[in-house]
């Protein structure tokens, strides 16, 4: 239909998970009362001066290393001037022409294919405050002002809204792996500006682009980008001109609309910030950080498939979050049954974490306890019902699996004599079901098994019960 294709570049702002701000000692807690985490520096008071947060520099370099960037051992901070109420100094301290990181790439998976989105640069800057609008007045909350912010800029290497999503998800996962940000979208840790243009298919040139500002949910980015791509494709198809402008996403109307045109574009008047010395990194330090990098999730998935013999699907689920994968590997390494460990983590563990809105670090179960639990199931000490119960207790309170089995008397009943009694009683109490089974209604066996389990208080070995029932009913 259309002979035009979209070309997209993303600028992602990632708030770094440092405990203090970029240029002062103020805390960076999200939910604090308005203007309770401020000082003369982050309020831009006369005479105050910035002092760079070394941890933020380190985190940015670690992020850059995680993304395969070249690290500039010499970089500097610049002032970017524009007036806005949420900007305490009316200039932002950022990095203009000598950022900490250059190049790099993010590999994305889409519909079974993988491709590479090249990065242009990563620079470190300070976040702004937040304007808050009331019925008749407005206020500014400066708690966020000065929070360290990384801007990760891609090349125009993205060709659909879905690819943009895949990129952002991969980027988020990598930043979580690098341990440099909470990447909490609700708290604004991860925000996106989108540059979008269209061009005739087969052309290498870039069309006139629009910029969509400050999108902060994945859903919003996808919706805004989808709308903008369609808008531009329609304009191009009808031969209309596309104007270079900044557009905003109107969530309620589901459209993008002009915010400011090229004519109103700012002249930011960048110049090196004379309050700050250049950032000079020692090569040895950067090498040390590189050595400390965690294994990237894609490589880890491949290795885990190989090492533990688990399905690709399992490995994908497990590596999604680094802490989950770490937990899994520790448990799997002390268990002869890594697939069973994977099942427990993917089902019970993830279910309980999501039900209770918890992080894995907050659960009390240890990898060793899970491995032990898997062993108790495999050696038939526990049946699956009891094992789930034990898992729940381990998750909630911690401890050793064997101790819980002991304390709760959950050891599976495989004693033939005892099972005989339960089976006989179940048949006697349910003559209709027994008859149904003999008449060929195999479903009745399940019902009778349930009765036996009830009589055994859930501890009967289901396999033995099934065999006994079959033989007694003449199956």
């Amino acid at each position: 239909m259309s002979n035009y294709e979209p070309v997209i570049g993303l600028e992602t702002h990632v708030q770094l998970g440092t405990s203090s701000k970029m240029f002062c000692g103020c805390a960076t807690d999200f939910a604090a009362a308005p203007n309770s985490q401020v000082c003369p520096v982050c309020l831009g008071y006369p005479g105050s001066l910035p002092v760079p947060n070394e941890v933020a520099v380190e985190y940015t370099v670690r992020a850059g290393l995680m993304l395969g960037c070249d690290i500039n051992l010499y970089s500097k901070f610049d002032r970017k001037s524009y007036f806005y109420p949420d900007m305490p100094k009316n200039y932002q301290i950022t990095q203009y022409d000598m950022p900490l990181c250059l190049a790099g790439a993010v590999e994305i998976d889409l519909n079974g294919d993988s491709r590479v989105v090249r990065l242009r640069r990563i620079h470190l800057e300070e976040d702004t405050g937040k304007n808050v609008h009331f019925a008749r007045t407005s206020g500014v909350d400066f708690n966020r002002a000065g929070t360290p912010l990384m801007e990760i800029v891609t090349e125009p290497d993205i060709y659909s809204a879905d690819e943009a999503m895949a990129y952002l998800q991969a980027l988020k996962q990598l930043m979580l792996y690098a341990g440099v940000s909470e990447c909490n979208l609700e708290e604004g840790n991860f925000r996106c500006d989108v540059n979008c243009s269209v061009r005739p298919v087969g052309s290498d040139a870039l069309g006139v682009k629009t910029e969509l500002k400050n999108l902060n949910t994945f859903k919003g980015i996808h919706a805004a980008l989808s709308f903008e791509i369609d808008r531009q494709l329609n304009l191009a198809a009808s031969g209309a001109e596309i104007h270079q402008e900044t557009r905003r996403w109107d969530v309620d109307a589901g459209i993008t609309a002009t915010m400011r045109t090229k004519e109103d574009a700012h002249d930011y008047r960048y110049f090196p910030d004379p309050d700050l010395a250049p950032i000079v990194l020692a090569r040895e330090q950067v090498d040390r950080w590189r050595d400390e990098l965690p294994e990237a999730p894609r490589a880890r998935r491949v290795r885990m498939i190989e090492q533990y013999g688990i399905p690709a699907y399992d490995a994908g689920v497990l590596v999604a979050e680094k802490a989950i994968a770490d937990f899994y590997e520790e448990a799997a390494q002390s268990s002869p049954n890594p697939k069973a460990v994977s099942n427990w983590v993917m089902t019970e563990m993830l279910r309980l974490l999501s039900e209770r809105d918890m992080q894995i670090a907050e659960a009390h179960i240890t990898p060793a306890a899970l491995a032990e639990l898997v062993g108790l199931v495999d050696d038939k000490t526990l049946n699956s019902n009891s094992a789930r119960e034990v898992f729940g207790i381990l998750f909630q309170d911690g401890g050793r699996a064997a101790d819980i089995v002991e304390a709760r008397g959950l050891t599976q009943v495989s004693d033939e004599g005892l099972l005989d009694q339960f089976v006989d009683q179940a048949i006697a109490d349910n003559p209709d079901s027994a008859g149904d089974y003999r008449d060929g209604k195999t479903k009745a066996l399940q019902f009778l098994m349930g009765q036996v389990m009830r009589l055994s208080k859930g501890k009967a070995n289901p396999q033995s019960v099934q065999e006994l029932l079959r033989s007694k009913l003449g199956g």
Partner: protein
Amino acid sequence: MSELLDRSIGDIAALLARGECSSVDLVQGLLHRIDSRDGDLSAYVSVDRDDALGQAQRADKARSEGDHRDLLGIPIAVKDILNVTGQPCTCASRILDGYVAPYDATAIARLRDAGLLFVGRTNMDEFAMGSSTENSTVGVTRNPWNTACVPGGSSGGSAAAVAAGEAVAALGTDTGGSIRQPAAFCGCVGLKPSYGRVSRYGLTAYASSLDQIGPLTHCVDDAARILQVIAGADPLDCTCLDVVVPDYRAALGGDLSGIRLGLPREYFVQGIDADVEQAVRGAIQQCEALGAEIVEVSLPHTEYAVSTYYIIATAEASANLARFDGVRYGLRAPGGKDPIDMYGKTRAAGFGDEVKRRILLGTYVLSSGYHDAYYVTAQKVRTLIRRDFEKVFESCDALLTPVAPTAAYRLGSVSDDPLSMYLGDIFTATANLAGICAVAVPCGFTSDKLPVGLQIVGGPYQEDRILQIAHAYEQSTEWHTMKPER
């Protein structure tokens, strides 16, 4: 009591230590002098009498309880650009109406720890932009030697207060000569430390890469005492370097034998007032008589210094002063229909003409299309100027120059001609561009009985050396003992 105020910090400290006077006596004497003289001079922007006396009482009490800090209970005047907790800090601008500093500048905190008292805030050119203290919203300050003349600027209030005995000592700031030139115009000692010697934390920035805090005092020894307290690395200012702070007073004394002093050819050119040149030449001869070897040297890029200075300083100022927007503190003009309109109205009402001129200049030199031609070029020339100095300091211990081409001029005589006022910075702005130190010491008078200053310029962190030279010269003359008639 009144002559007490004209004495050196060392003398006063000794009297306090011996119990021959109290800090309350000193502060009362000061307040009395301010009452009797400052009506004519307007050296001060504000004085909080009750607070000053309260500080003095606490100092006396501490002393009676065994606190023997050298400088305990000695008052110092502070240029109205430095933040002192609980005091206004208007920078002589309407735009900071109502602002009360919530914190101490590092230099202030160190002086406070050393026991000094902060009695009042001195007048200045608005945001330190000017060389005459005429660009002040609170009115002009007058020169104690001749009230028809300017005291120099921008630290004109500090210089006038010290010269008139309305302050024992004062802090000023120097971006292109703003300590040294008023010190010369008012006949006192003014020291601009090397860039990075004194923390700028709490100094309301005019031009961040040029600003330094320094003392204005009756004598060189006093300047050394104040520098000793305020110098040294500060975790709150990463441009303030961790370089050893020597014992500055230990360096004082002795003659100038074995010292080579350079006379930069480019600083002794046509256009210098004949009386000023004569006084400075006399001082050079005196230094020679004290044993110094005098050599002529060249600083070939001097002619570009003023334009380089005005590009860099205004560029930095245009960003530094952007924060004065009416949102968080200070003046907010009414009637803004949106934030941008409010900024415009506030800044139009809050800034004076010279400040607006420099913000516009700075905005222009940084703007797209002009940035390289002005700002980038100026940075390159700055490097050349710095190298000029590096080269001469390979063969000289220090340089001797006039502080300014003229002595104090009459009020209003230059204020309508910004360019000619800018040219008055020619001998001082170079030290700021090069990041080196320089001190102004009194070296005579013009035929109109106006003081003339000798500038002694030293390499980076050579404050001990220039203070030693200044001290040797000062002690061999009577100039520093002369006081304006009252």
